[in-house]
């Protein structure tokens, strides 16, 4: 049967057809929908893990217990999971393991555009790169077979353009692979130095075997047309090359590490000029040169995405003329109407504090008029960076700064920074924006939500009790919609010479639709045109220039009531109340 699936839906289908039993992942754009779709197959145990390192370790345990397992993450998630990955390469697997990593060239929703192919080389493990939805599905099964045949984890690499594009997929049946049973093999699984040294020899031998396998397998496909030029490419880039240069000979790589040198040398002899077209870093090209294969140079930027037109430009083809328009009124992303973060950022802006930010919807607190984020580096960094600021200034700057972090990010890796600040006598102020959900990636539940990935009731971590349990004395809940109280409490906590944690208590407007109330409206007779309500940055509030007064779009307003807290003229009223 033929259906249309996005790359991410196809990866999930691939896991189902490959007989995968366990998937543990942490959400991250553009990978989140893989696990969100896999949960629809009742044969697969799916879970949201607290972070990517935990997720991969769960997959390793499942493999050890004898079943096929998978973990899915975005590119920066693999940095978090790199520790288990590097040694998993040595131990190898029992049941097959696939590590699915989705890169984000052009940074549509990421803090960097690192190229995950480096990890395959670094960990000395194979990496497959599908070129469309159908291959996305098929490659999971092939990856599982390679994983078990060569006793190695296999990385399958996606990117935004593959994960979030859709194409026609031919569905197959699920293979029943059963369980191999729990493996007891001390020299294989216990990586003390003596065993590690032996396993490292195995890893090097495996890499040579995988190189041979890649040359012999049909993952590597040769399409011969003219003999003038030949292009080596893989993944989504293959589609761009195919469309930009239809009559060019291509060697399409399905496995991008280790490289199929025999096939590449064979192909290079059939064409006069050999090129590599790849997105982001020059990994394949550099490797070919290092192995003495003559490759033509292309003037290609390592920044951003390729496209059909970019490939045409690389080969000096004519492009049709097109016009562009600049300075159109923009539609920038903004915190939703009713967002429980807005009140806190309004207060932080009013108090003119230095704000160490983190990864999540609240990064949007950067934008005017709230303008209250001064750093964003990686998951959990806000808490540790605030501690660094505190120590660098002998406590002085901790009186002028705070860290903000969401519930999911705090439980991901923020908690480690908090333990460190507590142990090392820190004096920083941490605001945990607890909206009970992982917002930015599409509202996935986390350990503080109260339900699991399949929306069944689950144990709920109480973040206030957790912080108190560490031993922190100053832990308080605050209502982010109570502007006066927040002003007072945050001022108090930054000034005290002690580590303090404030935890907000309102849900994400999408996590709990029951909090939506009847909308507010502005009484034109009472509105003085002071513009105070326009400074909270709510998308429901606009300014009527001709009438010199503010206006609430009642179709957008969720009735959160933040605006009435900043109006000094009682001009804002709620419908029906």
């Amino acid at each position: 049967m033929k259906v249309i699936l996005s790359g991410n839906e196809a990866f999930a289908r691939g896991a189902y057809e490959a007989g995968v039993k366990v998937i543990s992942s942490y959400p991250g754009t553009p990978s989140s929908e893989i696990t969100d779709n896999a949960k629809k197959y009742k044969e697969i145990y799916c879970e949201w893990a607290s972070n990517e390192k935990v997720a991969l370790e769960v997959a390793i345990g499942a493999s050890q217990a004898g079943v096929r397992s998978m973990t899915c993450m975005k590119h920066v998630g693999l940095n978090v999971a790199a520790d288990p990955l590097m040694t998993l390469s040595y131990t190898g697997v029992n049941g097959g393991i696939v590590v699915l990593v989705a890169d984000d060239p052009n940074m549509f929703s990421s803090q960097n555009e690192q190229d995950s192919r480096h990890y395959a080389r670094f960990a000395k493990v194979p990496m497959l790169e599908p070129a469309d939805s159908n291959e996305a599905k098929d490659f999971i099964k092939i990856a599982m077979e390679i994983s078990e045949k060569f006793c190695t984890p296999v990385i399958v690499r996606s990117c935004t353009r593959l994960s979030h594009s859709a194409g026609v997929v031919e569905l197959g049946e699920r293979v029943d692979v059963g369980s191999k049973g729990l493996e007891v093999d001390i020299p294989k699984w216990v990586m003390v130095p003596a065993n590690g040294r032996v396993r490292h020899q195995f890893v090097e031998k495996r890499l040579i075997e995988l190189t041979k396998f890649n040359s012999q397998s049909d993952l590597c496909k040769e399409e011969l047309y003219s003999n003038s030029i030949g292009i080596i490419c893989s993944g989504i880039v293959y589609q761009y090359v195919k469309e930009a240069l239809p009559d060019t000979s291509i060697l399409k790589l399905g496995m991008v590490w280790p490289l199929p040198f025999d096939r590449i040398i064979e192909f290079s002899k059939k064409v006069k000029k050999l090129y590599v077209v790849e997105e982001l870093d020059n990994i394949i090209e550099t490797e070919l040169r290092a192995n003495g294969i003559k490759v033509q140079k292309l003037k290609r930027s390592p920044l951003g995405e390729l496209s059909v037109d970019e490939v045409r430009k690389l080969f000096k083809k004519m492009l049709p003329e097109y016009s562009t328009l600049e300075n159109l009124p923009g539609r920038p992303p903004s915190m939703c109407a009713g967002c429980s973060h807005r009140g806190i950022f309004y207060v932080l802006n009013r108090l003119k504090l230095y704000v160490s930010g983190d990864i999540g919807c609240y990064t949007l607190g950067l934008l005017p008029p709230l303008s209250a984020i001064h750093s964003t580096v990686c998951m959990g960094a806000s808490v540790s960076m605030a501690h660094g600021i505190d120590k660098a200034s002998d406590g002085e700057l901790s009186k002028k700064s705070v860290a903000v972090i969401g519930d999911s990010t705090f439980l991901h890796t923020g908690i480690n920074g908090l333990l460190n600040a507590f142990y090392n006598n820190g004096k920083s102020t941490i605001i945990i924006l607890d909206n009970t959900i992982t917002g930015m990636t599409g509202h996935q539940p986390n350990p503080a939500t109260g339900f699991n990935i399949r929306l069944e009731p689950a144990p709920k971590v109480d973040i206030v009790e957790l912080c108190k349990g560490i031993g922190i004395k100053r832990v308080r809940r605050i209502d982010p919609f109570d502007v006066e109280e927040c002003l007072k409490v945050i001022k108090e906590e930054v000034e005290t010479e002690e580590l303090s944690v404030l935890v907000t208590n309102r849900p994400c407007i999408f996590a709990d639709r029951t909090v939506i109330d009847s909308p507010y409206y502005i009484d034109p007779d009472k509105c003085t045109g002071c513009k105070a309500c326009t400074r909270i940055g709510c998308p429901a509030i606009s300014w009527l220039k001709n009438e010199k007064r503010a206006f609430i779009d009642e179709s957008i307003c969720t009735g959160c009531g933040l605006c009435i807290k900043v109006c000094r003229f009682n001009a804002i009223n709620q419908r029906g109340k």
Partner: protein
Amino acid sequence: MAKYDILVVGVGGQGSVLASDIICEVALLENFDVKKSEIHGMAQRGGSVVSHVRIGEKVYSPTISFAQADIIVSLERMEFLRYIEYASKKTVLINNSQKIIPASIINDAELYPDSLIEDNYKNFKEVYEFDAFKTAKDCGNPRGVSVVCLGYLSNFLPFSIENWKKAVAEKVPQKTVDANIKSFLSGRDLYKK
């Protein structure tokens, strides 16, 4: 076999993803190869949204190249301007006259680029403008703007009405099938009038 490169643009929440899903489904029912690409990620409610839909005998890139769109469906009056690089003198523009004021000019809605929109109409092969929001409301389905526009678009594609209805029924929530098919047909009829 013909090829159709269709760009569906609009504002987050208007249903551009649903519309492009339905086009893909009907193309599959008509035995075409089809690919779709869209960008979502950062909280994009109220943000600009674009879907590329490519239909043909064999489709490679999931994205349309500049100046290569056959049809641009703009679910909001100005949004096609943001993607004008995909248009050429061969492109048909199907434009919903509904305006959604962008957040950046919320302090002065007068800055809405009406004259720029009309200036750019002459760069298209054909332009069709109509009030899809009104039609959707008249059908008792105010959230059906994207399906009304799809109905209009259906006049430009060689797909059977049965397959369109089947694709709509497949993709919209079960409870809303009848309302959406009604909106689709009303949109389709707007072209003849």
